[in-house]
């Protein structure tokens, strides 16, 4: 039996797969493929944070920390100690989840701006540790010598193969998030978003659930970090700093909170925008700042909701 809602979900997945594979198969230009790969990596980050921020209502200004933990764990294990990168992926996710557990235990008891500042502090500390622990991480000058990913005879080099690897994982992550949100857990998460006291009252263990979703988003962040590290093959602390945490938050908010496709749209916009703005040269920052402000002022619900509203008003005006 297939309900209407199920049908639309399947159609959405089908459209997504068609667009992604069509782009990957047709495009020869490595620059475009590279940008699309970055969009995929950022989508993973935005998806993870969206689960925490959009659905559960817990703001995190330190999400780049898990991205960095994922990237550096795999870099150190596979680069320095020559461990199989796929095994390093497991370790990276485990490390991020463990740290999320330890940090989340006290931090997630906070709320509002206090939670925001707590996660900000955590993100800054992780970044400082990466920068100052030079013997292991390469310090401020970065980590060189990350091996290329291989699976059997398949080598994932920049280009179409890496593009398909990343977007395959993005597709899997979207399905996992969707299934999770449609479950009892998903409803509980939304209940926490709407009113934590009410959620406690109807028997939801809010602290445990917030912690679990924090760990889940950390795991997605670590996977993104792993993909990033083996894609660019050189990482440095700046890529995982405070400004990047803010950028992930912006992806979620600009795309539209509490929307899986919104995360994808937000990641795409925020990845493409700097590329487009290169043309403005020194005016790049001014334009970028203005775009952020204007979108937030006029479409506080994000682009997905904002554009849908515009279409709806246009339809109504025509009728």
């Amino acid at each position: 039996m297939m309900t209407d809602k199920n049908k639309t979900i399947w159609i959405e997945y089908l459209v997504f797969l068609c667009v992604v594979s069509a782009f990957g198969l047709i495009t020869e230009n490595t620059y475009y493929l590279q940008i699309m790969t970055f969009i995929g990596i950022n989508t993973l980050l935005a998806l993870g944070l969206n689960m925490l921020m959009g659905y559960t209502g817990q703001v995190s200004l330190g999400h780049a920390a898990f991205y960095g933990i994922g990237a550096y764990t795999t870099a150190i294990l596979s680069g320095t100690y020559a461990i199989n990168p796929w095994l390093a992926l497991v370790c990276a996710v485990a490390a991020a989840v463990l740290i999320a557990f330890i940090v989340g235990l006290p931090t997630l008891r906070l709320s509002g701006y206090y939670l925001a500042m707590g996660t900000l502090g955590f993100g800054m500390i992780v970044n400082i540790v990466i920068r100052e622990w030079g013997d292991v991480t390469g310090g401020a000058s970065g980590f060189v010598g990350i091996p290329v990913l291989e699976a059997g005879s398949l080598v994932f080099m920049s280009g179409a193969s890496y593009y398909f690897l990343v977007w395959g994982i993005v597709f899997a992550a979207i399905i996992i998030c969707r299934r999770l949100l449609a479950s009892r857990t998903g409803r509980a998460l939304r209940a926490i978003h709407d009113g934590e006291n009410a959620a406690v009252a109807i028997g939801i263990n809010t602290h445990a659930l917030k912690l679990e979703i924090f760990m889940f988003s950390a795991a997605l962040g670590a996977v993104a970090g792993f993909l990033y590290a083996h894609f660019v093959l050189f990482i440095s602390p700046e890529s995982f700093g405070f400004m990047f945490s803010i950028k992930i938050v912006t992806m979620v908010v600009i795309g539209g909170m509490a929307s899986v496709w919104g995360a994808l749209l937000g990641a795409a916009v925020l990845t493409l925008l700097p590329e487009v703005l290169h043309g403005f040269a020194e005016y790049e920052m001014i334009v970028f700042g203005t775009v952020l402000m204007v979108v937030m002022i006029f479409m506080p619900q994000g682009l997905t909701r904002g554009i849908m509203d515009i279409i709806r008003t246009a339809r109504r005006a025509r009728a």
Partner: protein
Amino acid sequence: MQEIVQYLFSGITTGAVYAVIAVGLSMLYSSTELINFAHGEFVMIGALAMVTLWVRIGLPLPLAVAGAVAAGCMLGLVFERLAIRTARNPQPITLIIITVGASIFLKGAAMIVWGKDPFSMPSFSSHESIEIFGAALLPQSIWIVTAALVLAGGIHLFLKQTLTGKAMVACAVNKKAAWLSGIPSEKMGILAFGISAGCGAVAGIFIAPITMSSYDMGTILGIKGFCAAMIGGLGSLWGAFAGGLLLGILESLGAGLISSALKDAIAFVLLLLILYIRPGGLFAAKEAKRF
């Protein structure tokens, strides 16, 4: 002994700067419940405006200071009018992103106006440094601490003694009730924005001679200011001030006695400890705790 006194001096100096930044943030938060991520950029504007007015144009010192503060206030008011007030139905997270956008915008604008190179600036007075317990006390340190005390004292008097100040406190306690009793709460928010941006500019003006000023100096100072305000207690004037001093001193001692590499981490470790143990801040009045 001599070393520790020296660390204390430099700690109190940077601490006073953090204190001024934190006071501005705290004022704004208590009147509007807004956390302004662009606050550090007003510090940057203050410092760079000072470079232009005092060093380049050669205005007399008091005039240059007044001009730089005015520039900070004006920018703050323009930002409030254009970006904050136009946002309808603002959620905290939307406002955070708007202020982040403003921060990037101001940084970009400053990069075009002043270029990418950092500027240095001479000290405000050419006195020799004073020696106490064998440690050198720079005249600029005295300037900074005096300015911070005068500023915080002035704001304190303003809030406690004038009608407008009392109206602002009323808005901070309960906006709706203040509005019902005839206080134009929206105007108070604007005023708070002006004062807060002005505080930022003051911090920038006084820090300019002891550090290099450049278009990207603001972000980290702004974040340290948040830490200070959080440590002292968001929304409390003297709490924020004390938080700033404490942070400056601990950073300086930590950098000197433990490791300079970890200097930046101290602020954040302290922030997390405070949040875990006493989330309202060290010196917060009870009503300042909102969450």
